[in-house]
């Protein structure tokens, strides 16, 4: 077993060059046949998703990748796709997987695009190798390695474009979800919606403190009705915000504490001492008015 793998390693270095160039020559000679068989296989494997992509687009993508593949094989003989000679192939693949990600394909379907080239390519290799078993094994091995690398690269790019999408949406959510509203002259409200983490608290704190300065507000009501869970970290963030507002000379009221949240806070042993807490925003607003010496009455 080990002897075989050892021989393979030695053989890899020596014969890869030849093997790769053979793949290139196969692509050269049988380009149209490879292309039609490859696209046919793709259409078979994607038969349920035909609404997402047109035949023409699929054929164009395949043709582009095949020519980029040949170019890469000619420039860089050892199948290392991170080298500069593979730049075009990487660009084509990256573009395809980004497009597939936005079109709504799964990672498997996107990677299958590359892997479905194996069968037609192997058929040609078998024909070319004839009865030489050793030669055949080497060819198949290097072709598999190359296509696997390309397939993995596709998945990686697919994943990365998804991650970028998520990051962008997170950023948008961060900017959208922290409004500071003025309820009355000198009374600000900060309705918090969604989970509070460190980076969001930073933005919330900044917005609130700046609004306190610009509006000259003496009282700020932080409403946590929309915060799904309060753990020790969230509580700590809230207390920090309250402390910072107090340092600037504004008083904070925390409102919108749901029954479950009240239970959690006590179970966790969080000390909210020194902060006025109210069950609803209305109660908090009443306290604020009373502190300003105002009252609401019927005319």
């Amino acid at each position, binding site marked *: 077993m080990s002897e075989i793998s050892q021989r393979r390693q030695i053989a890899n270095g020596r014969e890869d060059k030849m093997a790769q160039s053979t793949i290139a020559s196969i692509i050269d000679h049988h380009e149209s046949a490879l292309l039609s068989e490859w696209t046919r296989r793709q259409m078979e494997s994607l038969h349920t998703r035909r609404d997402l992509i047109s035949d023409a687009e699929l054929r164009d993508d395949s043709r582009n990748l095949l020519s980029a593949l040949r170019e890469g094989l000619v420039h860089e003989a050892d199948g290392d796709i991170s080298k500069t000679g593979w730049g075009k192939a990487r660009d084509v693949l990256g573009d395809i997987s980004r497009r597939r990600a936005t079109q709504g394909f799964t990672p498997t379907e996107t990677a299958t695009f590359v892997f479905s080239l194996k069968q037609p390519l192997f058929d040609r290799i078998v024909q070319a190798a004839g009865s030489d078993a050793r030669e055949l094994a080497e060819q198949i091995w290097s072709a598999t390695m190359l296509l696997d690398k390309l397939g993995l690269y596709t998945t990686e790019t697919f994943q990365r474009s998804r991650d970028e999408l998520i990051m962008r949406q997170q950023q948008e959510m961060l900017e959208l979800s922290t409004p500071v509203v003025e309820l009355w002259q000198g009374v600000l409200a900060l309705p918090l919606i969604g989970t509070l983490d460190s980076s969001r608290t930073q933005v919330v704190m900044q917005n609130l*403190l700046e609004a306190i*300065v610009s509006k000259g507000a*003496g009282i700020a009501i932080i409403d946590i009705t929309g915060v799904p869970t309060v753990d020790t970290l969230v509580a700590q963030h809230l207390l920090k915000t309250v402390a*910072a507002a107090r*340092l600037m*000379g504004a008083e904070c009221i925390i409102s919108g504490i749901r029954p479950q949240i009240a239970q959690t806070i006590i179970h966790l042993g969080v000390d909210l001492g020194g902060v006025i807490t109210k069950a609803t925003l209305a109660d908090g607003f009443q306290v604020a008015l009373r502190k300003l010496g105002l009252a609401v009455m019927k005319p």
Partner: protein
Amino acid sequence: MDKIPILHVGPFLLVTIQVDMHDRLALTLQDDLTTQIVSHRARGVLIDITALDIVDSFIGRMLSNIAGMAKILDAETVVVGMQPSVAVTLVELGLSLPGIRTALNVDRGMDLLRASRESEGPIVGSREIT
């Protein structure tokens, strides 16, 4: 050597910090302030830090020291005009300055001092000594 001026506003003292605080300046300020509280029988001290945009633990400690000293001399301290970035820094440093009262600006700080002075009320001593 520069000095931080201390202004008299009615029964209160107003200190406006506009320069970078360093150790010697802070000590001089503490000295001057305590002397003036005693000599003018001041009942309150306003420290305006609107112009201060960088703080460290030293300045935080200095503020609470001044408040402590004033308290012993029966004067109340109000820190006014703290910038948002300064407030965040102090909280992150763990210096939330307990025992110091704060206000948004000098006006409000003055109101605060007046209010707490009125609530004390005049001293009435009518107990008969027998």
